[in-house]
């Protein structure tokens, strides 16, 4: 079964690492997976995006408007990619705002994305998450990617068994800080199942693991 995932954020947030963990988990699962990472020119502070596809595919790049799941580490970067999702697809969006220097140079502030998110919600399931607060609670900021992975898993958006996901976390993150990352992963799962999650507040069922019907 094909599944097209995109992970976006800002250099330094752990976007690529999150992609590698998901891909590794699919490998352990026995599912074919391909992933592409484009770093661009800057190392920290630039846009970063990772594409993952599973199933009978060779290229990691889905067609435009064919993404099933977008995991966003930063609201502005996430919003930028709304158009690449098909109708009914899911967006998991961390609310950590990182204003681009482009704004400061023009003496501008971070845009208010509330209206955009609201208007998009008729087409996509947008789930916002305070992943940074949960990462701190688990132990440190760096575990924010584990929170998001836990939430994506908890929402049933990834076709991976939990044990395999945890093995992937161990394989990729190594022993250093593993305990914190596992805690962060669990807190992401808990959030997905909690009433804080808007998806569980009668705002409509999250379209679980839904590839493009077309």
């Amino acid at each position, binding site marked *: 079964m094909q599944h097209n995932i995109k992970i976006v954020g800002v250099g330094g947030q752990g976007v690529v690492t999150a992609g590698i963990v998901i891909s590794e988990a699919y490998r352990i699962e026995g599912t074919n997976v391909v992933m*592409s990472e484009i770093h661009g020119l800057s190392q920290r502070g630039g846009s970063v995006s990772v594409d993952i596809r599973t199933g009978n595919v*060779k290229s990691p790049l889905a*067609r435009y408007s064919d993404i099933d799941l977008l995991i966003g580490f930063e609201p*502005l970067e996430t919003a930028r990619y709304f158009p690449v999702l098909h109708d009914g697809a899911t967006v998991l969006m961390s609310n950590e705002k990182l204003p*681009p220097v482009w704004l*400061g140079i023009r003496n501008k502030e971070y845009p208010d994305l509330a209206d955009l998110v609201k208007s998009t919600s008729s087409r996509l399931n947008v789930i916002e998450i305070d992943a940074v607060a949960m990462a701190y609670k688990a132990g440190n900021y760096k575990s924010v990617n584990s929170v998001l992975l836990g939430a994506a898993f908890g929402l049933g958006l990834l076709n991976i068994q939990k044990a395999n996901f945890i093995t992937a976390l161990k394989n990729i993150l190594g022993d250093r800080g593993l305990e914190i990352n596992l805690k962060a992963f669990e807190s992401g799962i808990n959030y997905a199942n909690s009433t804080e999650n808007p998806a569980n507040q009668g705002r409509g069922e999250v379209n679980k693991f839904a590839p493009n019907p077309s």
Partner: protein
Amino acid sequence: MFSMTKLDLLTSDSPGSLLLLGNEAVARGALEAGVKFASTYPGTPSSEVGETIARFSQNSGMYFEYSINEKLALEIAYGASISGLRSLVFMKHVGLNVASDVLNSISHTGVNAGLVIMTADDPSMYSSQNEQDNRRYSDLAHVPMIEPSSPQEAKDFLLEAFEISERYKVPVLFRTTTRVSHLRGIVNLGPIKRLEEKGKFVSDHSRFIALPSNSFRLKDELILKELSLEKESNSSVLNRVEGNGKGRIGIITSGAAYNVTADTVSQFDVDADILKIGFTNPLPTEIIEEFISSHKEVAISEELDPYLETKIRAIAQLKKLGSRIAGKLDGFFPKSHEYSVDIVVSSLAKAFDIKDPTTHEQIDSELPPRPPVLCPGCPHRATYYAVRRAVKMSGKKNVVFSSDIGCYSLGYYEPFEEADIMLEMGSSIGVGQGVSLATGQTVISFIGDSTFFHSGIPSLINAVRNNSRLILVVLDNRTTAMTGQEPNPGVPVNAQGNPTKEISIEAIIRSIGISSVNVVDPYDLKSMIHEISSSLREEGISVIIARRECAILRDREMRKSGVAKTYEVDLEKCGLCYNCVENFACPAISIDNGKVSINPILCDGCGVCSESYVCPFNAIKEVK
């Protein structure tokens, strides 16, 4: 940058599968091929090959070095190959331009133990100054070329490339592109080969002396090798046909274009067979002839130049094949940038009168962009800030900024805009000389430490010899930062982190007769501005070496020692001049509800923003 696979897994001799980046798979392939000698100059998208080999070379009995440029990397690997050791050399596409002098000579002399030259091309230029199709080099040099499409093939085909190189005593080009080198996928491992530790050079003047008398004969031998290699290509497992052979269209493809082409065929149920070519020079003419003969309609789906297409049309003409061939030359497929499923399906639709299922409605975002930026704490930010201030204070008009290749290329962007010319490795000094001599305008050239060693030194000698007027700023961050912090000759460690001789940039510059050479810490804005200002008043050549370690390297050290400094804004003192956000442009500083705020997660603790040249109100203080 993301060579993350655990070392014990990557170097394990037991069977199994790993999730590997294409470049990691090449490094693993080197182990399986029994490579004893590897060299490179780092360049994206090839960098992770070196990063990975650097991690295991010492324990695997493999010699590996970061050479100062690609020409040297190839010469060194060639020396090892003719001495009997399997050698791998790798570089980005433009690196092969630098090494092409070597390539076009060693193609004649041939090699002994296998020599494979990996070139990582960059269609769509994600991290390059140009888009060039290095498949052309295999024709120019008359050497065989292999093109993998996936991490698995990157490993497996490398082994085959070494076999071919050794069998025909010829260097083999191994061409990847960004979407292969930076594709991560599942790779089944093979056994690790252990070969001779030490080589032995046996003199053979008939081969290794490239004098006209020898080369005249060697050229004919090379042409004969090409004929045998064509037979090899015809029976090679690297070329294969997919499909039942009865498809309406026959599509010929290779490399990353194969991936999107195969996905197009399966996603849209295109009635097609695919001929995937992995041995792209010499082409398997017999296989192609048969494939074309069995399809009335043929498409050639390849990225960049019509490389396969030109040759395939020639084959069709020579063999008098009547099938219709569609490609770039008749305008159906694009000639630039990487391909996608959307591009391939649209091109096929145009060529074969099929309904185009793509809508082409790409929505333009009105959201603020996030152009590439220098990292928080980057010493180059301080340098560019200081240079801008000094130039402004001098009142000089028409100052020309000649920049170069590295992280500091980002000085082109706002708010610094300190690049009027930027071309290729080492060009800042040479092009700057030309502009200075032609116009008499003040020229400030920027060059990084690694780029200075790569190709800046001869240009500076030329500037001295020809009485040029030039201000040179060496942005010495004590690493090759952009490609992943590889060490360069300016630091006392080698690729494996072992101690080695450090080469002094200032000693080199002084030794060629430049007396105005000052080493300044760019974090010290006052001294930087002072030195640049003096240089602007000088005649002749003056050099400022802005020396401060790359922030990413420093962070790694600080994380180990557990020290983390951050800064904050004292809102009572802040005069709301916004100079820090508008002109210093650190990603950690932004405006939030009209107030200046520093993100403690992003703040690197460099403290440059707290200096009075950035914050005249002294409102930025270290968090205690």
